């Protein structure tokens, strides 16, 4: 029996400044139960893989993960495959 955690697959849409690096979406795999920080780390790795020039830790830190209906809190955990979006600081109007 394996002790490795179950993995979930997340499709993440990219908006705003992230589009300068990839027009997305990108796919990442993380352990079931992962929180926002772990998902952002996986996203950073994937963005570096698809575009070697991606090196924006501050942008990622200031950005939020969201579903179609809500922004995720840092303490939220994901337990199943999902479609998310990474949202840099906003400036509509």
């Amino acid at each position, binding site marked *: 029996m394996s002790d490795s955690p179950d993995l979930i697959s997340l499709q993440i849409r990219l908006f*705003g400044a992230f589009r300068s690096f990839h027009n997305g979406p990108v796919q990442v795999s993380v352990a079931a139960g992962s929180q926002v920080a772990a998902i952002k780390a996986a996203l950073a790795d994937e963005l570096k893989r698809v575009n070697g020039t991606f090196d924006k830790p501050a942008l990622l830190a200031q950005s939020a993960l969201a579903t179609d209906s809500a922004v995720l809190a840092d303490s939220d955990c994901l337990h199943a495959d999902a479609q998310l*979006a990474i949202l840099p600081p*906003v400036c509509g109007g």
Partner: protein
Amino acid sequence: MSGRDYLRISGSPLVAQAAIDFVADPAHGAADLFVGTVRDHNLGKPVRGVSYDVFDGLCLTVFRELAAEVRARWGERLKVYIEHFQGRLDIGGVSILVAVSSPHRDESFKACRYLIEEIKHRAPIWKQEHYVDGDSEWVQGHALCAHGPADETIGL
């Protein structure tokens, strides 16, 4: 969308008269309209256009929340129109229309101001400015967080 709200993301030119017509109501003696347009400069750099990126689904959810918030604060009878442009605009292009009508002017003034300020802080919308020198840049904005009304800073 209720009959009192018109909430939309649009890739077609925004028309101010449509907002005024929507919020018109024989029981309302006041209507306020905010029109956001693309200006020809930002932070000292000459601008020739702006592209707007929008996360449609969540953006409409935020618009619905905002419409509910202004009704809770300034009355159930308010009519609300919010339309934001998606795509590229040249100088003078209309990026957003916000209109509110109410029986008396105080409520529509306050609700209209609240809506545009909260949209700037909470709606998932991004601007990429295109400069006269050929460069383009995503505009710095406000970080989103997982809670409701952004702040009490506008003093309404």
